[in-house]
């Protein structure tokens, strides 16, 4: 097993009349375990061209078998008007503008003929450089056909 931590820090001195600051750290564990960490990692950097909705992180039966996966996605563009739309099964989660990031648990449990748990991305105004990490405990490997 591996030990991976995800730390979030939020701070603002002026969005409220009092400063807000919070920090939290979680350890990424497998489902149905008390202390067994996820030990597999995919880390990618991709140039997403405009105009098409792509599967950024495809679903698979193996990912579905362990519903405790975690995805981190960042739009590395520097122009704040460049954005990529992130969605699951045609449900738009939100838009990552240049410099924005997100971190979500991902259960990969959408089922049925039209359901698809894949995390999708579509760049809009400009091509977007997207980096993403998936922490998981197993994905479906494709058998070589040659």
């Amino acid at each position, binding site marked *: 097993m591996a*030990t991976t931590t995800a*730390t979030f820090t*939020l701070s603002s001195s002026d969005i409220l009349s009092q400063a807000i600051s919070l920090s939290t750290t979680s350890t990424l564990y497998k489902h149905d375990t008390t202390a067994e960490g996820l030990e*597999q990692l995919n880390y990618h950097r991709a140039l997403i061209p405009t105009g098409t909705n792509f599967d950024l992180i495809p679903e698979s039966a193996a990912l579905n078998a362990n519903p405790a996966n975690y995805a981190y996605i960042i739009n590395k563009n520097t122009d704040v008007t460049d954005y990529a739309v992130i969605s699951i099964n045609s449900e738009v*989660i*939100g838009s990552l*503008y240049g*410099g924005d990031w997100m971190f979500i648990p991902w259960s990969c449990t959408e089922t049925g003929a039209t359901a698809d748990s894949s995390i999708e991305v579509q760049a809009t105004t400009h091509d977007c450089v997207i980096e993403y*990490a998936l922490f998981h405990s197993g994905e479906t490997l494709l058998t070589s056909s040659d």
Partner: protein
Amino acid sequence: MATTNATITLSSADIADNSFSVSNTATLTKAGSATGITKTTGLSRIETSATTNIVLFDMGESTGVGGVGNITKGKLYIKNLNDRGDGTKFVAVLLGTVNIGNLYGGDWAFFPLDGGAGNDIEITPSSTTDTTLEYIMFYE
């Protein structure tokens, strides 16, 4: 305008041959702009023993928890404050009818929202064990 920063650090000494660490800070701005977001629900905390769908934010109406409605763009932080327990209990986070993922005890998430009617933020605890959640939304 306000300046609000959100930083993530992912770190592991043993998930790969070499240690892995990624850290990035995003300044929370209005969509497509360098102007800082100026609205927030403030930090909220709820406890529930329900195992049914609970609407955390009714994105198209004014009846969501906190009375915040008609949100079109936002960013949400949410954390399951429960202990991990036996590792089987979680809170499913849904966007409309789509299950995004499961927050086990101690887990957190931070993600952008496009909002609009039908894109409610909902939660479904997996157990009748009391679940405590903390969350804050920044929105336009």
